[in-house]
């Protein structure tokens, strides 16, 4: 019952303390992590967006430069000059010197006929009239193609400009080296997982993607997802890895430059931070839980101890209250009994006196009368003794204050009982503190107490055993312990041993007043008697006597 109360209390203490200390820790941890993750995410987005922007601009610039130099060549040369192989070749050389990345150069007349060509392929004489870009360049003036296979069966793209000369149009057309172009785009690839590529408005790859496929294949990117401004989206690829894509539309061409990064890698440091945080929180939780449990245990233990002490104190208080009340009652009862006893004793005495007279001596029942009178006297005496014992501690007119040597008093008491003990084969051992001070007290009363306790010990043992009598000084008190190896006293009897008329001895053997009188004597001196006993392990009585220093004579 009591244990469960303590256990519940312990649970409550632990529960509340853990809740109060752990909840803020968790809230703080989660909040900080989320805030940090948000900022980190923004930073990463920002970075990749900036990179896409910058790269798109670079590619734009590349195309613009190529277009400009091609246009300059067309504008500065007449059709007749251009179709001469020598001039065309020189133009290509200049263009490659100034800008670079041109593979070939060709001149197409207004009928679509490829009239002049310099380059590694033999494309002269091919008619482009039916090619879709031909119409476009004719109408718009400048044209940059998507990547296509064309007549040469290799992925490439061309830049074409139209020249108006004397009412006729001709076209100067150049192929851009796809490898150089690709290397410019791929310069934006970062780390081991970064990718950079270009798709057209249908999502067809215009440059090789590092992880997303070969040139001219359909990429996983849907260009419709990318807005006019640079857009960042997150998308899972085939391996279920989450990738971050930033796409930026180019100005001169309907191409989307895409830069991608592996989210996992990008967020790596964030995840590391998260792991550290989780580890710290786990350590904190462990430390808090251990401390709280330990402290709660300690508190409950202290509480149990002080409760136990309180209970003991209460029991002692109840005991002394009870005995005080009994003492008062006993004094009253004694008076009421002693007066009638006095009358009975006198009357009986008187009868005895009269019986002694001559005329009764020859009476038939004289002996019977005499015996009855003696018996009455004997039993009045018995009753008187009981009442006197009951008041024993108070009988003396003045409690004398004399110099008392406790050790000497104990020795005297043991001397009185030694014979009795020896007959029963009981060994009385003494362990005295030789430095005990002489105190002011009533030696006879103390002797009565020790006599009661030691003779009780002998009676408890019966025969064959030992008694230990110890004296020592503790602060301002003298402690006398009398320990026997008798059968011990059961706990329910222990509560009553100081009660008057309570005896564990056989009927008629003890009055049941010895311990009660002893208790009162010691109580009056300002000391205490306590009993500790365990059935089967003997009994120890402890008498605590306050040290009163005798007055100097």
């Amino acid at each position, binding site marked *: 019952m009591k244990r469960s109360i303590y256990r519940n209390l312990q649970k409550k203490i632990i529960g509340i303390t853990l809740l109060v200390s752990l909840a803020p820790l968790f809230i703080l941890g989660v909040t900080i992590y989320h805030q940090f993750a948000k900022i980190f995410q923004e930073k990463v987005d920002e970075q990749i967006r900036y990179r896409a922007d910058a790269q798109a601009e670079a590619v734009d610039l590349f195309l613009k430069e190529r277009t400009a130099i091609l246009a300059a060549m067309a504008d500065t040369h007449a059709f007749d000059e251009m179709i001469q192989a020598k001039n065309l070749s020189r133009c290509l050389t200049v263009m490659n010197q100034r800008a670079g990345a041109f593979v070939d150069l060709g001149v197409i007349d207004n009928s679509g006929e490829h009239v002049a060509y310099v380059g590694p392929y033999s494309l002269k004489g091919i008619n482009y009239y039916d090619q879709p870009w031909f119409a476009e360049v004719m109408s718009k003036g400048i044209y940059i193609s998507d990547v296509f296979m064309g007549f040469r069966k290799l992925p490439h793209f061309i830049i074409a400009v139209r020249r108006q000369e004397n009412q006729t149009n001709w076209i100067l057309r150049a192929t851009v080296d796809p490898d150089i172009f690709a290397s410019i785009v791929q310069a934006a690839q970062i780390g081991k997982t970064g990718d950079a590529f270009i798709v057209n408005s249908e999502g067809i790859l215009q440059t090789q993607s590092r992880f997303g496929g070969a040139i001219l294949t359909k990429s996983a990117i849907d260009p419709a997802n990318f807005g006019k401004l640079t857009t960042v989206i997150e998308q899972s690829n085939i391996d279920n890895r989450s990738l971050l894509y930033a796409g930026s539309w180019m100005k001169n061409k309907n191409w989307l430059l895409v830069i991608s990064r592996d989210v996992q890698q990008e967020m790596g440091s964030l995840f590391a931070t998260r792991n550290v945080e989780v580890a710290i929180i786990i350590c904190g939780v462990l430390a808090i839980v251990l401390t709280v449990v330990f402290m709660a245990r300690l508190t409950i233990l202290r509480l149990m101890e002080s409760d136990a002490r309180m209970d003991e104190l209460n029991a002692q208080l109840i005991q002394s209250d009870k005995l005080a009340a009994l003492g008062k009652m006993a*004094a*009253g009862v*004694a*008076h*009421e009994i*002693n*007066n009638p*006893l*006095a*009358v*009975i*004793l*006198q*009357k009986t*005495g*008187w009868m005895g*006196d009269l019986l002694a007279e001559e005329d009764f001596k020859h009476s038939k029942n004289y002996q019977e009368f005499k015996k009855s009178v003696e018996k009455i006297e004997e039993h*009045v005496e018995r009753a*008187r003794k009981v009442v*006197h014992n009951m*008041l024993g501690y*108070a*009988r*003396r*007119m*003045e*409690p004398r204050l004399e110099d008392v040597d406790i050790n000497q008093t104990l020795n005297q008491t043991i001397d009185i009982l030694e014979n009795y003990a020896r007959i029963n084969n009981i060994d009385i051992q003494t362990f005295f503190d030789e430095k005990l001070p002489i105190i002011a007290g009533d030696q006879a009363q103390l002797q009565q107490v020790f006599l009661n306790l030691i003779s009780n010990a002998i009676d408890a043992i019966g025969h064959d055993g030992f008694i230990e009598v110890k004296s020592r000084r503790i602060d301002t008190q003298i402690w006398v312990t009398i320990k026997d190896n008798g059968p011990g006293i059961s706990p329910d009897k222990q509560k009553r041993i100081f009660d008057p008329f309570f005896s564990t001895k056989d009927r008629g053997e003890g009055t049941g007043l010895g311990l009660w009188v002893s208790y009162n004597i010691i109580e009056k001196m300002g000391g205490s008697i306590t009993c500790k006993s365990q059935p089967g392990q003997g009994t120890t009585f402890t008498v605590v006597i306050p040290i009163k220093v005798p007055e100097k004579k």
Partner: protein
Amino acid sequence: MHYFNVLVVDDEEDFLDTLMNRLKKRNIDTIGCHSGEEALELMKKKIFDVVVLDIKMPGGMDGIETLREIKKIQPDAEILLLTGHASVETSVEGMKLGAFDYLLKPIKLEDLLEKMAQALEKKDTVEHKRQSEQIRKLLKYW
């Protein structure tokens, strides 16, 4: 046998009568009464060697008051206090007021007689001392 007289004061009639009978039977000159007031009246008329006085008497004067008055009338009378219970304080007060000793009821007659004898011995000594002192005084002035 030294001749002396005794006054017994006790409110318990049965006790008083029986005790007086037993003392008288032993040729002791005994007078009894039931209250302190009566005792004082008697003592004004007659000198007593020993007074046996019950400390607790209901109604009227109690033992201690009576003792105080007796000591005023007859300082030389030896007083034996009787009581039914051990009231240490009262007894101590009685002793301080000059009572010879203190006995707890019930008492055996033999014990009472023994105490009386002791009281008389003491009384004798006191009287002898006074007599010898008076003689010395006379010698001085002479």
